[in-house]
C-alpha cells in the first residue's frame, strides 16, 4: 500500500482544480476580475479632481479597489460559493474521501491568490495606461504591498470560509453577503476619502479589516505627505498588521470549529 498524499500536495491539486473550475464560470470571472476595473473606469472618469497635492482621486481609488478586491474575491466569493457547494453535495462528497479539510482550505486560498493577481495586474495596468496612476518605486513600499496582499488574502479567505456557515442555503447566500461587503466598502473609505466620512462611520469601519487593508494600500500607492489626511496622521501599518492577524486567528478558529460539510 502506498502512502497517502500530503495535505499540502493535495492543497495544490485542489487549488489547480478550483482555478480551472473558476475560469470556466464566465459570470464569476467577469464579476470578480473585471468588476473592479469597470468601477475604476467609472469613478476615474467621473472624479477627475485631485484630493491632495499630487494625489488624484484615481490614485486614491486604486488603493481602495485593490483592498476591496481582496474582500470580494476572498470573503464575498467564498461566503457565497461554499454554501452553494454545500447545497450541491460537493462538500459532502469530499467529506467522504480521505482528502483533509486543510487541503480544501488551501485550495480555496490559492484560488483567491490567483484571482487577486489577475485583478492587481489589470487594475495597475489600466490605471497606468489610462488614469495616470503612479506605481510605487521604493522597495519598501513594494514590500508593504507584498505582505499586505498575502496577509489580506489569508484573512479574507479564512473569514469567507468562516462566514459560509451563516447562510442557510446557497441561494440566499448572496443576499446576505453582498450587502455586508458593499456597506463595508462605503464605511471603509473605498469610494470616499475616509476622513471625510462621519466619525461614527469611521469608528464602525475601524472594527473591520477592510478599513485597515484600504489604509495599508494607501500607504503603498499614495505619497507619504498624504498621512496629513489620515486619522492618526500616520499610515499605522503596524496596527493594520495587528488587526489583520487578529481577524485571521479569529476566523481560523471559527472556520476549523464550525465548518460544516452538509446541511
Amino acid at each position, binding site marked *: 500500500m502506498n502512502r497517502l498524499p500530503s495535505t499540502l500536495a493535495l492543497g495544490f491539486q485542489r487549488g489547480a482544480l478550483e482555478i480551472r473550475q473558476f475560469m470556466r464560470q464566465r459570470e464569476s470571472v467577469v464579476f470578480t476580475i473585471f468588476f473592479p476595473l469597470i468601477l475604476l473606469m467609472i469613478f476615474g472618469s467621473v472624479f477627475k479632481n485631485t484630493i491632495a497635492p499630487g494625489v488624484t482621486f484615481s490614485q486614491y481609488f486604486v488603493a481602495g479597489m485593490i483592498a476591496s478586491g481582496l474582500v470580494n474575491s476572498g470573503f464575498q466569493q467564498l461566503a457565497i460559493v461554499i454554501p452553494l457547494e454545500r447545497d450541491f453535495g460537493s462538500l459532502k462528497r469530499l467529506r*467522504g474521501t480521505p482528502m483533509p479539510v486543510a487541503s480544501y482550505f488551501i485550495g480555496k486560498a490559492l484560488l483567491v491568490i490567483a484571482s487577486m493577481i489577475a485583478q492587481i495586474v489589470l487594475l495597475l495596468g489600466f490605471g497606468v495606461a489610462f488614469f495616470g496612476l503612479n506605481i510605487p518605486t521604493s522597495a519598501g513600499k513594494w514590500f508593504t504591498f507584498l505582505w499586505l496582499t498575502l496577509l489580506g488574502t489569508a484573512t479574507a479567505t479564512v473569514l469567507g470560509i468562516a462566514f459560509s456557515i451563516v447562510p442557510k442555503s446557497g441561494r440566499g447566500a448572496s443576499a446576505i453577503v453582498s450587502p455586508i461587503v458593499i456597506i463595508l466598502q462605503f464605511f471603509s473609505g473605498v469610494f470616499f476619502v475616509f476622513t471625510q466620512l462621519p466619525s461614527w462611520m469611521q469608528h464602525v469601519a475601524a472594527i473591520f479589516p477592510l478599513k485597515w487593508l484600504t489604509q495599508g494600500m494607501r500607504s503603498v500607492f499614495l505619497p507619504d505627505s498624504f498621512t496629513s489626511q489620515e486619522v492618526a496622521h500616520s499610515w499605522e501599518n503596524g496596527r493594520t498588521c495587528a488587526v489583520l492577524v487578529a481577524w485571521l486567528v479569529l476566523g481560523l478558529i471559527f472556520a476549523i470549529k464550525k465548518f460544516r460539510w452538509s446541511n
Partner: protein
Amino acid sequence: MSVIEVRGLRKSYGENLAVAGIDLSIAQGEIFALLGPNGAGKTTTVEILEGFRDRDSGEISVLGHDPQRSDKSGRIWRNRIGIVLQATSDAGDLRVSECIEHFAKYYSNPRDPESVIAAVGLSEKREDLIRNLSGGQRRRLDVALGIIGNPELLFLDEPTTGFDPEARRAFWELIRSLQSDGTTILLTTHYLDEAEALADRVAVINHGKILEIATPQKLGGRSTSLTKVQWLENGEIRSEESSEPTAVVKRLASQFPGEIPGLTISRPTLEDVYLAMIGGAE
C-alpha cells in the same frame, strides 16, 4: 470476518426516534441490501456508518474503525471505503476525465482512472463537461468516484435511480465484478428487483427497527409460502393457493382435454413479501 458490526444503534432527532436499536453484521465480500420505506431510518443508519452523523448510543465497527472518531485514523479509514451518495449536482464545470483523475489523487492506492471510466461506461463522454451529462450518466460518474479509491467497502445509496433498464443491467454487472474482487457492498435501494438480483442478504427496516434479515429467497417466509396456481375456466379467472402446486396442476391436467388455458404458477415476489412486511408493521 465481519466488515460492519453494529450493536444496539440508536439515534433520535429531538423527539423523533429515527433509529431504535439496530443490530447488523455484514461479512467480507457480501452484498447486503437495506430496504425500507422513506423515513424508516435507512439513511440515518447508513450515514452513521459512513461517518457523516454521530450516534446517540450503540457499538459500531466499520473495517475495525469507529466512524465517529475524528482523529488522524479517520483519513486512513476513509482511504479504505467508497461512498456513492444520493444524486448530486456538483462539479458541473469539470470534464468527466478531469474529475475522476482528480479524485484518484486523494487515495493511496487508486484504480486506474481510464479503466474506471470504461467500467462505468463513460468512455465516450470522457471529454464532456459534467453539466452536460444526462441523469443516468451523472449517476455513473458518482459510482466511478465512489470506486476510484479501490475501496474494501462500498456504500451505494440508491445507485440506479434514473437509469434505463439496459444501464441498470450493465451497472449490476459492474457491482458483481466488484464483489468478485472481494469488495463488500452495502446497498440501499427502492428497487426490489435490484435487491433480488444483487444482494446476498437483505434487511427490511421500518420505524427505526429491523424487521427481518434474510436472503432475498427466504425473506418473509417466501420460500415456504403458498404457491398460486391460476387458470381460465369458462372464461373466468380461477386461482388456488397451495403448498403442493404440482398436485394442483396434475388435477387440472386431467380435468382439461389438452393445454390448461391461461395457466400461470407463481410464488410471491420479493416485492409481495416486502409490502406485506411493511404493511403489517403499520
